[in-house]
């Protein structure tokens, strides 16, 4: 516990707490709506935006936020209008963002250390400013979920029904996509653009295996998210391995254990028989 006396470790623990909660909460929405690939796509958009910021010499989080929100604003209507199938439209945006990310990386002069840090993330070097941003996003997100819980529940579980009963379902849906973009941007420095979606998907997917209640799923996923961050952080410190990777591997292990002991697997077996 002596290690927690260091300021950088306190910051990292706080970033793990906020990042674990906020990523898992948006993860619950994308996993329940079967839109996991959207999370992957927005994460790469944020990453490409951040690299553009670095390339042009301004705060990468600003351009990451713009890119992630714009990609969320494009994916939603493309998927809704059905001009292309949702997986095709998301795949096209995803490949464009990956292409842009490598383009900006290639054009960047000199050392690319900061750019590579956005790849892997570095929770141990998270700044006070990043922590305030991440904490603010977490607080706003929790507040919005508490206020609009019933609308969110209706949209993530029964989107067409929500629309038919007069809930502003489209507004809520886009709000969830924008929240995903905001969350990814806020977690980019600590977790990294390539690893962030694992922290979005794994705790939520693990919680999805364990409960039939959305409220409990949000709580379980948040707990798994925080445990992934803190256990990953501890493993990183003790074993001297990259923190982003250890966080994601911990989240994957939790998902594996949850799936192995999922009570829902019995339902699946029962349905097959």
């Amino acid at each position: 516990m002596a290690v927690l006396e260091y300021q950088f470790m306190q910051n990292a623990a706080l970033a793990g707490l906020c990042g674990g909660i906020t990523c898992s909460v948006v993860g619950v929405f994308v996993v329940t709506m079967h839109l996991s690939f959207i999370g992957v796509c927005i994460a790469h958009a944020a990453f490409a935006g951040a690299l553009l910021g670095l390339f042009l010499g301004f705060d990468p989080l600003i351009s990451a936020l713009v890119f992630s929100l714009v990609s969320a604003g494009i994916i939603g209507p493309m998927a809704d209008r059905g001009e292309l199938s949702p997986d095709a439209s998301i795949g096209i945006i995803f490949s464009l963002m990956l292409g842009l990310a490598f383009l900006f990386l290639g054009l960047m002069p000199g050392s690319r250390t900061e750019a590579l840090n956005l790849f892997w993330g570095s929770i141990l070097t998270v700044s006070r400013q990043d922590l305030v941003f991440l904490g603010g996003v977490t607080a706003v997100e929790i507040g919005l979920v508490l206020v609009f819980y019933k609308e969110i529940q209706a949209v993530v579980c029964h989107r067409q029904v929500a629309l038919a009963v007069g809930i502003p379902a489209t507004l809520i849906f886009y709000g969830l996509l924008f929240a995903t973009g905001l969350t990814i941007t806020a977690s980019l420095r600590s977790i990294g653009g390539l690893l962030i979606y694992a922290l979005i998907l794994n705790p939520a997917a693990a919680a999805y295996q364990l409960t039939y209640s959305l409220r409990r799923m949000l709580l379980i996923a948040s707990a798994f998210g925080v445990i992934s961050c803190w256990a990953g952080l501890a493993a990183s410190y003790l074993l001297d391995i990259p923190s982003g990777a250890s966080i994601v591997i911990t989240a994957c292990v939790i998902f594996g254990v949850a799936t192995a002991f999922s009570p829902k697997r019995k339902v699946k077996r029962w349905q097959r028989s």
Partner: protein
Amino acid sequence: MDDVVISIEDAVISYREDVALQGVSLKVHRGDFIGIIGPNGAGKTTLLTVVNGLARLLQGEATVLGLAVNKQNSTRLRRRIGYVAQVENIDPRLPINVRETVMVGAYGRLGLFHRPSPAQWQQVDRILDVVGIAHLSRRPIGHLSGGEYQRAAIARAIVQEPEIFLLDEPTASIDERAQWEILDLIQLIHGKYHMTTLFVTHDLRQLPSTCQRLVLMKQGKIWRQGKPELIFEKNVLSQLYGVPVPMPLKAGSASWLHSSQ
């Protein structure tokens, strides 16, 4: 004319290059039970989506419950219109139970920033009892059979306290026994809650006996309409479907379904 709750004039709707509705006009009076029949692709479902504002009119106009159906009014209108669609494929792991799913019907009317009261949860329990699935209230919605799911969907529509009840092939894809139970339930609900009901089906045997008027649709147009006992005739139906329709139809719940002409 004050009791006209649905008035559609010359409605045209197109999905890309396909014209789904071509100049359809329809008037429905308060308390009517209208059956809408026709082959697949005739525009039956699209006609329902004109009523609840889910479809965008390219031409013509629609007035429902005294409000013009447009982007501004559609959310307000949908709160007053119950909609039950076909059984959909639900993920068995979906994290919501039957009671919560039924309560979703009240959320539009409740509005943002308001939570359901204990009295509203009690109302949900009473309605689950009316539709016969009170014992399933805590079960995950994805674990219900097709018939049970449709009962939950009907309960959700009742919780909404709608003035208009839209039913889009509610008995499709469920077993024979559940089909007749759902039909009986729909007729019970129509009478008990004094709603205006529009019932769409392509299966002639699934028309409830309470139908006061039949609307026959073909190729995006209202091909014919009238009282069921006058219109439910072998030649008319054979022309509608483009194949000989054997009469009398078997297993119908309505007396006029058995008439052999």
